């Protein structure tokens, strides 16, 4: 025999691992040889395991896994099912699964690639760092709230959450990530300002054995990470463009108002929209104007477009309600009630739905869910416990359309009047995943790492907790 001998619990673990690897009954003599065990030690261990049903010695000279092995697997599955049930938020209605949208699993090979994470396994509780790109819009606030909610929900697994905002500066975010590592973060959640400037620092995290979960934005092919939690931006942009094309019956002149030019989600949504609009030869795109996901800029841009094109604009594609509210207001101010506001796309923000419903504007939206922040926390906690996770997770969302404005290919999961919250603030982001009573203005949260129950979203960039 060669190699180190095994004793006690280590012997037992090695024996079980050997049988799991084989997946079939093994000769006792060969097990003893491969594990460098004396036959006496092996036989004693096997007898103990057989006595409780973990192993089976019914076949002479052989050892196999016993019935309790199956019970162990089923006990784990029961535990995971209960965790899963606690995680899944009930929907007001089942998703319609509009015919135009393809299943995400068929779209992205990374969605069905499972990443083994046993190398990251450590004993809880865990110190988590969240490097956030920016805190300059209601959507960013909701994302931070969602991550913080995760730290509270899983307080039995989280020892501290450290949130840092980079104010849309990649250099600052790289410094934030190094700061999180220096402060002892055992896992990172990153909503990336940009990808190339962060590659080296995330590689350093990987070298130190610290796993990273990308959330919302970041180019997974460029950034070292374990999993990417997002929502399918191509489908968001394409679905809203498809609705606009169909509601205009394939004819007319439209303007495209995408969000932030440097942000990958906005780029992908615009690509998705253009790919669909190309199938409507009767639609002319008058202009494409970036809006920084700002209602103020959305208003200014639309006012200028109205000066240029007047009543020629038949429809407005916005990739989010963050700027759609500005466009809607500009049209309402210009029209003075004289003419209907043309169909718009873009949701997310409660005010976008309020304006559309109040003024009878046809609107379609696919909310980009900040609930992905909570999901990212869950994925990171799975990784730190050594569980395998998908390489990519697309958080499901809803298609929302104003009543009577569904089209042949775009069926709503919710009507806008079912989705809007008249009782809650205009700047509420509706797909936060934080429950029906969530109010961003009164959101208070207590977790190790924050102070005075104040959310990190209320802290300006650069300020420490």
């Amino acid at each position, binding site marked *: 025999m060669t190699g180190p001998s095994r004793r006690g619990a280590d012997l*037992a*673990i090695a024996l*079980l691992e050997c049988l799991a690897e084989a*997946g079939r009954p093994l000769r006792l003599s060969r097990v003893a040889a491969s594990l460098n065990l004396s036959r006496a030690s092996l036989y004693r261990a096997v007898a103990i395991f057989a006595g409780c049903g973990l192993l089976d010695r019914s076949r002479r000279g052989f050892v196999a896994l016993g019935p309790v092995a199956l019970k*162990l697997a089923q006990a784990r599955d029961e535990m995971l*099912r209960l*965790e899963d049930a606690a995680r899944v938020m009930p929907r007001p209605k089942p998703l319609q*699964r509009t015919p135009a949208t393809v*299943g995400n699993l068929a779209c992205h090979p990374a969605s069905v690639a499972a990443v083994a994470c046993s190398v990251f396994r450590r*004993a809880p509780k865990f110190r988590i760092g969240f490097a956030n790109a920016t805190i300059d819009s209601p959507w960013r606030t909701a994302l931070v709230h969602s991550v913080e909610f995760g730290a509270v929900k899983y307080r039995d697994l989280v020892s501290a959450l450290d949130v840092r905002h980079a104010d849309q500066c990649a250099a600052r975010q790289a410094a934030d990530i190094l700061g999180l590592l220096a402060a002892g973060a055992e896992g990172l959640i990153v909503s990336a300002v940009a990808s190339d400037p962060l590659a080296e620092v995330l590689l350093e995290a990987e070298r130190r054995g610290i796993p990273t979960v990308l959330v919302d934005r970041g180019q997974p092919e460029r950034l070292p990470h374990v999993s990417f939690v997002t929502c399918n931006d191509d489908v968001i942009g394409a679905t809203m463009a498809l609705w606009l094309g169909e509601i205009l019956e394939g004819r007319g002149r439209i303007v495209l108002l995408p969000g932030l030019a440097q942000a990958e989600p906005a780029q992908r949504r615009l690509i998705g929209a253009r790919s669909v609009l190309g199938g409507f030869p009767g639609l002319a795109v008058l202009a494409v104007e970036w809006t920084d996901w700002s209602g103020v800029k959305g208003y200014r841009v639309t006012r200028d477009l109205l000066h240029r094109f007047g009543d020629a604009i038949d429809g407005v594609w916005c990739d989010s309600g963050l700027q759609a509210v500005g466009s809607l207001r500009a049209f309402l101010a210009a029209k003075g009630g004289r003419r209907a506001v043309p169909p718009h796309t873009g949701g997310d923000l409660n005010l976008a739905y309020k304006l559309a419903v109040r003024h009878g504007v046809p609107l379609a939206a696919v909310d980009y869910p900040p609930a992905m922040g909570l999901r990212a926390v869950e994925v990171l906690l799975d990784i730190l416990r050594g569980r395998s996770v998908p390489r990519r997770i697309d958080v499901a969302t809803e298609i929302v359309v104003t009543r009577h404005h569904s089209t042949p290919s775009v069926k709503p999961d919710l009507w806008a009047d079912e989705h809007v919250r008249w009782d809650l603030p205009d700047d509420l982001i509706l797909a936060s995943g934080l429950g029906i009573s969530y109010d961003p203005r009164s959101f208070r949260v207590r977790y190790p790492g924050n102070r005075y129950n104040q959310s990190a979203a209320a802290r300006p960039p650069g300020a420490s907790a």
Partner: protein
Amino acid sequence: MSAEGSGVAVLARILATLADGEPSTGAALARRLGTARSTTFDVLRRLEQAGFVERDARGLIAPGPAGARLGFALFGLAAIEAAAEALLPVLRDDTEATAELLVRTAEGEIVLVQRQAAPGGAERGTAEAVLAMPLAAGRPDAILRLRTCRPVSASERDRMNRSLAAVAGALARCLESTLPRDP
């Protein structure tokens, strides 16, 4: 019993207890087994390092992925345990149908992994994919199945089948990449 034997015995009893009951604290396990806390905690540490136990969302000790792998290994499916755990929830989320990995034996079906969709009444539709099992003579069939309680249009059924095929393909690749070998 020798010290070596007692370590094996405590480990075996911990796993058998977790197979039978609820997740628990280390102290509660030690009390239930009548073993010294120091011995129990030492064995638990080793089991946790090896992945046979882990902490659930409440911080309690529960069977870990390596423990589940033992059950999968009974049917020659140890190679897909980790991937099945990771991918069945996303299959469920993508299709809003209950997703199951099961084996079909002469005695009936044994469900290894199940992630449930929201309850909604009588079952209205199923979709199944049989996993191709290399070198599987004498093994029961491994099945990936979706069950739904809501009306399913033709296009939705097509979408479910595509998502099912994507995950089944991923699991089959895990099986193919693992060749059985003698110890």
